[in-house]
């Protein structure tokens, strides 16, 4: 049975007339990576700020089972520009009541793991954006927290840093409970054991990525751009064989099993009716599809 590390009960936060988080309840299990997926402004950051005690909720409660040692890596890089990498790790370590020697030792270790060992005596102001993000993460880990909260951990990272950070977070997951927020479905899908999809402050659904994808049907998704014929005519051609279809402008999202075998005859039928085929993408179901099926909108809209 999964052991609960963090329990959130009916958390609500309003800013004036805007309800940023609306009666949010969920459980995070010990040792899992729990992803908060939602578009910008969905209430993800507000939710985790309340979970970490940085923001007082209007109502509801957050219950930490067992330890309450939390590390948070905010979306913005929050650093002391005039301190070196090691100095700020030492400083924050000491703020968590670590002995100076241990803080320094752990700081050295983290810098090494995150590929910043050569920058240990460099001022934060001299680091590149990706390095700053990595240092930002190190600051959240200096006191070896039981629960690690990562707000958009891959935002602003260069591909090399992204890979490094992703691998490191995965390695941490074996020892810690990790909560991450993201508006990036790939990131959530790759990283999270379970995903909570949130929109307009409301929790829509919580489950594993695979289970969530299963809820919207089996098979692949064919994204096809059809030009020169009206939507009604295009639908008349497609729908008899592919009833699960969504339309956005000239783009048609067709979900079906074994779609590869039927693609050729579909394209022929469209061309025969005078249609032109623009861009074509074939992919597996994603969390984005889940989000679309739940809200009727894309994550980035």
């Amino acid at each position: 049975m999964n052991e609960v590390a963090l329990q959130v009960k009916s958390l609500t936060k309003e800013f004036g007339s805007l309800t940023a988080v609306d009666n949010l309840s969920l459980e995070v299990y010990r040792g899992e990576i729990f992803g908060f997926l939602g578009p910008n402004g969905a209430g993800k950051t507000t939710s985790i700020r309340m979970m970490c005690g940085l923001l007082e909720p209007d109502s509801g409660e957050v219950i930490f089972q067992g330890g309450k040692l939390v590390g948070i890596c905010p979306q913005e890089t929050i650093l002391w520009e005039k301190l070196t990498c090691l100095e700020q790790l030492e400083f924050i370590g000491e703020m968590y009541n670590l002995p100076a020697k241990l803080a320094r030792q752990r700081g050295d270790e983290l810098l090494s793991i995150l590929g910043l060992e050569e920058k240990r005596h460099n001022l934060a102001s001299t680091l590149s954006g990706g390095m700053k993000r990595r240092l930002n993460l190190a600051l959240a880990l200096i006191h070896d927290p039981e629960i690690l909260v990562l707000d958009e951990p891959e935002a602003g990272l260069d591909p090399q840093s992204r890979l490094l950070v992703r691998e490191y977070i995965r390695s941490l997951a074996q020892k810690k409970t990790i909560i991450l927020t993201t508006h990036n479905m790939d990131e959530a899908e790759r990283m999270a054991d379970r995903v909570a999809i949130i929109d307009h402050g409301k929790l829509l659904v919580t489950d594993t990525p695979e289970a969530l994808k299963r809820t919207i049907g089996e098979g692949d998704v064919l994204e096809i751009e059809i030009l020169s014929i009206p939507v009604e005519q295009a639908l008349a051609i497609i729908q008899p064989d592919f009833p699960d279809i969504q339309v956005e402008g000239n783009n048609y999202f067709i979900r079906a099993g074994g779609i590869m075998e039927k693609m050729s005859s579909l394209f022929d039928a469209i061309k025969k009716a005078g249609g032109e085929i623009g861009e074509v993408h074939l992919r597996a179901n994603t969390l984005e599809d889940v989000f679309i099926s739940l809200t009727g909108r894309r994550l980035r809209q």
Partner: protein
Amino acid sequence: MRIWSVIRKCAREQKRDLWVLGLSLVFAPLFVFIYWLFTGGNATTSYAALVINHDEAARFSDGVMHNAGEDVILAMQELTFKDGSPILRVSSISDRDLGETALRDRDATLLVIIPPSFSQTLANAQSGAAEPTTQVEFIGDLTNPYYTVAAVMAMTALDGYAVDATGEYRAVSLLETALGDSAARTEFEMYIPGLLVLAVIMMLFQAAMLVARDIESGSLQRLKITRLTAFEYLSGTTAWLALIAIAEVLLTFAVAVAFGFRSHGALWVAILVGVITSLSIIGVGMIVASLSKTVSQAFVIANFPFGFFMFLSGAAFPIPMNRLFTIAERDIKIIDVLPPTHAVAALNKVFTLEVGLSGVLYELTALSVLSVIYFSVGVWLFRKRHLN
């Protein structure tokens, strides 16, 4: 432990901001140096007096013709401070309009017009005739604070000469006793307490902006998660700023002494006053920081207490205030909530009036109480607004 870590963090950050640290440290010493240059080092205040002498010579009882007006001018020129420097810089002119223009432009402080009958009237009085009297005219801008001093000094010279010349019996003689070393203070020395207090007041900006930098950058949010308390954070920051203030006060004294400043009381008492004053000013800086979200906001807000400290504390000029209440036979006024009020009073006592620690105990106590109050309010506000 955590307070010490905050001090070390502040020190490290400041180490990389040597320009700001340097400016903070040299601000007051530089002003001392500039003021020394302006005042000519040891010079005392000398008041420019213009004299129009219409006097016509008359024969006195010794049978010699005298122009008493010229003697009065000489008597005015001979008035000196304890160090021998002249009190009045006397110049003779012939045109009243020119003299009044000089007064309006503050090129001169006083215009004295001696009438044609001056010598004759004195000669008559010498021979026993009481009538008629003659009238010497004093002209000046009464809103100019220097006028009163110059006029009193010129009257003293004139009156002394007239009494001596006529041999009148003087029933009352006046004895002036200068408190402490007040008769021998140079203009440069008189302004040192004010400059020192100004240097300490300037800590207000540094204190407020140092804390506001952490608020603006968001790093305070990170500290919030560590459960660092407002008291710990502000104590560490205050301790670091106090170290800078001590260095600044010592440096200012060192420069002042090097340029001839003399303290007649114990210098360490003055330094103690400076340090405790800086703590109270830093306390106000913490309140300002608590009310700010950005460094520029802190700067703007800090101008308000700065204005009060500079112009309403009595540090720059006397402020007439009614007492609010009395404690231990001391009248408490509204301006007593401003630390510079006590700092200037204490420093003047130490420097000029030769008092020791016991003589400034009241001011030190007031400064200490204000420091505690301002710091506590700062902590309370900071906890409420930033580190809750």
